[in-house]
């Protein structure tokens, strides 16, 4: 499983085609400890089976600051990012028994928790704004959850990781900047030093390529 994650990271970390700024930032991510040897899935398993506080603390120290970092990049305020980071880790503790390393890597699983909490937070905020400005609307029931909770994930983690390896570093980077970090296309263009039109076409090509590879692997 870890091998799959490491493999997945290789094309992203490959320096070819990346501007200095991005490469430098990537290297900061590895500065803390022997990350490649940590088996996050094993730590999550220990939380699930034994309520292992020490394992949880290691997960917390690694992931909480990264969740905060990613949420800040994606446009959340510092307070919101902090709240999402803490709530995500609480959910990691509570849902640890649901984690299945065959369906997703630990970082991807933790990302989906943070993402769902961010969706909830935004909806709650929108509802509060609405109640303040338009009291005629009744408070909606709080039961609506992101529909993807219903998605049953196939046992495809390894296969998907191997498909992602076939994306070029350039393609992975542009998808990540656009969709995960949610940076506007003009900003991506200047960060990567390429024309705006190239950003758009590269995203399009990356999406089509990913779809094709996944179809071939199916």
């Amino acid at each position, binding site marked *: 499983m870890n091998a799959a994650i490491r493999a997945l990271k290789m094309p992203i970390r490959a320096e070819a085609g990346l501007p200095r700024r991005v490469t430098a930032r990537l290297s900061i991510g590895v500065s803390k400890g022997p990350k490649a040897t940590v088996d996050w899935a094993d730590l999550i398993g220990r939380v699930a089976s034994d309520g292992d*506080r020490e394992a949880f603390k290691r997960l917390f120290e690694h992931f909480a600051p990264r969740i905060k970092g990613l949420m800040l990049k994606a446009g959340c305020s510092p307070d919101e990012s902090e709240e999402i980071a803490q709530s995500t880790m609480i959910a990691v503790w509570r849902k640890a028994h649901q984690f299945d390393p065959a369906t997703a890597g630990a970082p991807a699983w933790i990302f989906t928790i943070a993402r769902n909490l961010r969706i909830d937070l935004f909806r709650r905020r929108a*509802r509060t704004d609405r109640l303040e400005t338009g009291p005629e609307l009744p408070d909606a*029931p709080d039961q609506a959850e992101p529909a*993807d909770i219903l998605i049953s994930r196939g046992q495809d983690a390894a296969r998907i990781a191997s498909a992602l390896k076939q994306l070029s570093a350039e393609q992975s980077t542009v998808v990540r900047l656009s969709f995960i970090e949610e940076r506007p296309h003009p900003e991506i263009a200047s960060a990567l030093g390429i024309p705006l039109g190239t950003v758009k076409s590269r995203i399009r090509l990356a*999406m089509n390529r990913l779809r094709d590879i*996944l179809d071939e692997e199916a």
Partner: protein
Amino acid sequence: MTISHHPPEDLLADFAAGKLEEAHQLVVGVHVAGCPRCTRFVQAIEQLAGAALEEVEPVSIAPDAFDRVMSRIQEAPRETAAPSLVSGMDDDVPPALRKYRIGKRRRVAPGLSLRPIELSSSGKSRAFLLRSAPGSRMLEHTHTGTELTLVLEGSFSHEGGRFGPGDFDYGDDEVDHRPIVGDEGPCLCLVAMTGDLRMNGLLGRLIGPFVRL
């Protein structure tokens, strides 16, 4: 169920990143839940997101964050019970929507009725179930924003092809569709729409007075 029409990839990526309006998130999510091919694509984007999470520069969290998290965990260590089914075993509500409160059916035109879906937020998008009689010609319309349609039962056809259960139709403001419902039975669709429903299009003019979503 053979699905031949899928959401565009960038819409799936936005879905995986959690960026869509609630109505769109719902319609794409119901499609993905029934489509192994799109589930794989979404999982791939989530894996990329996981890699991004590993690579991102960590930002210091509050010094007491771990203690606060542990005390919140100890206050309520177990998950609460599963949410109750709001819509219950309603006739034409698919299982994926049973957690939503769904309004009464309203007839909006001959052979055409809809049920609004109550969303938790006040985004610019609306979601509803649209039921059309077999063989009917759906209202000709254009939209100011995007319109996502997922077929739940029956079928319709337009110049883009035939759309059966599980198929996803993406319409933007450049599309001018005049779908015809298949003869095999009523067509039930889950629709998400952005833009103002009191828009200038014919559909908006026709259903606007009836619908307060």
